[in-house]
């Protein structure tokens, strides 16, 4: 192998201080709302209440953080029309931006994306980076070292990401097949394709949910004291990315096989994700259901956990649906309406 001397030299070279050119602020320009554009009425009806009539982010709805200003031209997930259509379609879990998949037809969403881009500055073409992995029409599973989920936390040398076409990515630590975080947006940058390799993957999405340890105890505690979950396979079948793993008791003996399928989930209440567990053998429990909500400021995390009917005897099927952050109405009636509509759609 090449001597590590060269790596040191390369690193030293890389540490030259960057020269930042002097920048002058852009000149203010008059706002053109493109009133003749066919999507203008759609925008006023669906978007303006949060994003403002001119797309300046100053809408009338009370939000705990300002809505995106389209005039600035920067977007959460890139300024390509595809990214905007996806955001309009699936929403941004963990934020007040809802999903319009049911409310608007695809053609309407595409028109809105085009219109919203017109409200901003003229775009430069950004080069796609060679190492960025993009999820297209089928889910993608990538394995690599995971960086800390929260700052100051540990890296995980064995990890994987499942990316969905809806723009969600599920981050798992594979040593014990534990879901660590859910992200939304672009997928991943393979930083380990640079140099000698060995760097952590860079998940590109915005974190919409960090899972606490023990949050899956409701699934696995019923199997008694478990030593661990042993990774067995990742699959992309039937349009879904999923994981197969084995439950082992403390002596390493087989307890059950698990098939876990994480997917995007959207409803009128908001955007989030679902996880389905098929556990074999397991006692089916189709009657159980538990809904919960946790309020944090102006947002609430909604969760539904339930048993489903099993395709076969002796297979336990469980489902967890999470909306990490929806706008929580101020009044009790509005709250009930929201929960009812969430549960109705989740249970369908």
């Amino acid at each position, binding site marked *: 192998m090449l001597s590590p001397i060269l790596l040191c030299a390369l690193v030293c070279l890389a540490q030259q201080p960057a020269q930042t050119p002097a920048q002058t602020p852009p000149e203010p320009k008059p706002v053109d709302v493109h009133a003749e554009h066919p999507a203008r009425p759609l925008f006023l009806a669906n978007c303006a209440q949060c994003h403002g009539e001119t797309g300046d982010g100053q809408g009338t709805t009370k939000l705990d953080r300002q809505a995106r200003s389209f005039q600035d031209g920067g977007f959460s997930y890139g300024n390509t029309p595809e990214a905007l259509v996806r955001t309009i379609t699936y929403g941004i879990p963990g934020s007040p931006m809802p999903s319009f998949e049911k409310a608007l037809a695809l053609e309407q969403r595409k028109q809105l994306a085009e219109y919203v881009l017109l409200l901003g500055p003229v775009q430069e073409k950004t080069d796609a980076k060679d190492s960025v992995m993009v999820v297209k029409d089928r889910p993608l*599973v990538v394995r690599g070292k995971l960086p800390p989920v929260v700052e*100051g936390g540990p890296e995980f040398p*064995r990890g994987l990401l499942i990316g969905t076409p809806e723009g969600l990515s599920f981050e798992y630590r*594979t040593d014990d097949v534990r879901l660590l975080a859910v992200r939304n947006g672009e997928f991943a940058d393979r930083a380990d394709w*640079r140099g000698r*390799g060995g760097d952590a993957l860079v998940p590109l999405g915005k974190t919409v949910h960090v899972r606490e340890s023990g949050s899956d105890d409701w699934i696995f505690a019923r199997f008694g004291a478990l030593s661990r979950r042993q990774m067995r396979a990742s699959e992309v079948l039937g349009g879904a990315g999923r994981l197969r793993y084995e439950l082992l008791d403390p002596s390493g003996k087989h307890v059950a096989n698990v098939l876990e399928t994480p997917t995007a989930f959207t409803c009128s209440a908001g955007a989030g994700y679902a996880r389905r567990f098929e556990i074999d053998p397991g006692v089916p429990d189709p009657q159980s259901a538990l809904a919960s909500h946790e309020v944090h400021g102006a947002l609430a995390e909604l969760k539904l956990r339930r048993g489903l009917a099993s395709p076969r005897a002796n297979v336990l099927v469980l489902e967890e649906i999470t909306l990490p952050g929806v706008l929580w109405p101020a009044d009790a009636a509005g709250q009930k309406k929201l929960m009812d509509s969430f549960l109705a759609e989740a249970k369908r």
Partner: protein
Amino acid sequence: MFPFAALLLATFQQPVANEADYYTVDYLQPPPGALVEVGGMDFLPDGRLALSTRRGQVWIVDNPLAADPKDAHFQLFAEGLQEGLGLNVVDGEIYVVQRSELSRLRDTDHDGVCDTIETVCNSWGVSGNYHEFAYGLPNDAEGNFYVSLNLGFTDPKWWHGRSLAPYRGWIVQISKSGKLSPYAYGFRSPCGLGMDDTGHLLLTDNQGDWEPVCPLYYVKPDAFHGAPASLEWTPQYQETKAVPSLTNPPDMPRVAPALWMPYGWTRSTGDMCTIPRDGKFGPFGGQLALAEMTNGLVLRADLEDVRGQMQGACMLLRQRIGSAIRVHFASDGTLFTGLTNRGWGGLGPSAGVARVRWNGKTPFEIEHVHLVQDGFELALSEPLAPSWKPDPADVIATQYHYDWWWEYGSPERGTRMLTGTTLETSADRKQLVVHFSDLAAGEVAKVKLSGLVSASGQALLHDEFAYTVNQLPEGPLCDTPVARVVPPPPARENGSEGWLRVCYGNAFEMWKPSHWKLADFELDPADPTKFELKDGSGALANQGVTPAEDYVSNFVFGDAKIHVECALPKGGATAVSVFGLYDIRLADPGDEQKLSLSSMGAVLPGEHFAGSPPLLPAFKGPGTWHDLDFFFRAPRFDASGKKTANARFERVMVDDVLLQNQIELTEPVKGARGPEVAQGPLVIRGGLGTCAVGGIMVRPLDVEWIAQGWTPLLAPDEIEGWKEVGGGTWHNEDKLLTSGGKAGFLETERDDYENFELRARCKINDGGLSGVWLRADAPETGAPAGYCVKLNASHPDAEKTGSILGFAPRTVHLVPQDTWFDLVVRCETTPEGNRISVRINGSEVNSALDTAKKFTKGRVMLEQHHEGSVLEVKDLAIHAL
């Protein structure tokens, strides 16, 4: 030594042979934009070629043997793997070894794309170090796979390979059911793991620490192959918790490699494949072809068994291919060569697949080298020309050996010309025997033959071989290895760099006032539970201090490496407490054999935190000094102050025996007061019993020296912007400033530095004395003005490095002479006065307040105090506050 030189010489006398006349090379054509950095190759049963790459892709190539490479089509089968440095097709299934798992790849819905990646095994150790590659992927007749695991390389001592997780530096065996068993050890960067066609497991390692050049091993199970870091995971080291030395050779037998391959031919050897015995690749059936990345070529190894030791000759086979890391013969004799060199370097092309083919014309080569007691029998591929006469002057032969040491690689040592050369040819002129009078075992023999011509008028295509003579065929067995034990060279840098010696020379200055005593001690012969204290400065003891007091430092640190020496009387006890919150107990366990939280080296519990007993007993007896060394990682907090990561003790050792590893400290020790913090003092507990401590050193870790916001004060090669004053001479070259001459100063031309931080790496020599002057000026006559931070290790002046002249002396010897240290000085006007503070190696060690505000601004100056004093300075920079 490239044969090109020989070829150049040969042009004046002989026909020249050209490899391209016998072996053609072409390249498969991946799709545009696809970077196929090959890590593994094998053929599917239907003849398609499967490739795995360093970017975690698996490609399948249709029609790989097509005459026109454009007709070999690539299809992406899988992506998203974490590297893929070995691939094997077994029973029609594709297996790939990724960095962290051995996987089987399947296309269960038969759409041509992999949909299922099964984890066959993911239980070998990975610490996350960037260099932890996993290579493969041979399998044996029982269906077991073999994977070799690279060591890790860390900062700052990147030259020492380390085994940071289980089985790094080992070959592991993985059964069909995925069970992992350790197989063999003593490897460094074992890139080329393969098998010959008789089922022998073979491995090439790469030159570096403990590897003089690249070796080729016949792997011996359960045996040590030469690189010591991996010894950590052997049962013997695990039981004794010994840590393999990075610099001292372990006293144990090593497997001798079949080949030590000359540095000029190979620096980064990849894997190997047996050359077809049916002659489809020319005359070398049954020998090995080996991939070489740096020189971009394929070598040949011709091996034989000499009294139970595999050894033999290596020679060049085909050069100018590209950065070859993997070789695999197809059924028609085509040699497929997988290429990559990203991050490693090598002759291009740096990616893709080359196909090397023999065109059917037999080259004139030394086909086979067979060792005899006093020389070599060479079987030639063609008979020698009748006119060719053997002449000893045509033979240049040397023998040499290597050093087996921690330095990166070894030159050839003890090179001697072999003498008494005689030659004889066989009757059919296809055999040439070379005799020497002094051929020895325990050395490599390199033999070069000039002037050989075949009957058909060809010159030798490759005229040199290197034969590793582990053993001769007769006589007493040689027990001297070719890579020999030598006294270890000195450590690469002074071991004191980065440390602060916080009791040296003045045991109290860096600590809060207390009643601990500085003394020499012995055990009281009348009562071994007590020390007898005498005048001296060998230790700090708390005996007789009532009420009991902790010894608390007045400097703080975050992450650090810590060294404390400790001696205890019978029944004595103390604890080393980081921040006063996390305690490691040092105590005489008495008669108690069982390891518990009362034992030497225990991590003490909190309210809920269980603590951790040590892994082994470590108390050597009352009155005996013990060395405690450990790494501490401070807790982490987010911007709102919420803790995001726990503090940790990593690698707690007493006398080099590992007692604790990776202990997460979920809360402070029971009875500790105060919240958890990111930085804090070092505390020696005085209330647990009687103890004596000394030799305390702290090395702050992960101290960043970022470039942004700092302005270098010195150009790399000149002293522009500075002026010499007085008799000192200042030499600045290649970013190193060195002082000399008589007393004087080097002062900035600018004289308006006011509020700033100044940093530099400094070194002061034995007997030298210097200072960094701030807000200063040096008039032609009279004393210099300004604030001065002194730099002094061993000059008689009592004020040592870190002293602030006239305000706050530091008589403690924080850093020794001739040792680089990091210095940061802060100079700031505050309402209360001018504040000067000094940080050394990342920790603040001194601070002073000039309430008279004597100096408001001025130059920065470096002082040369007297002739013989030498100050060295690197990376001098300033940043305004």
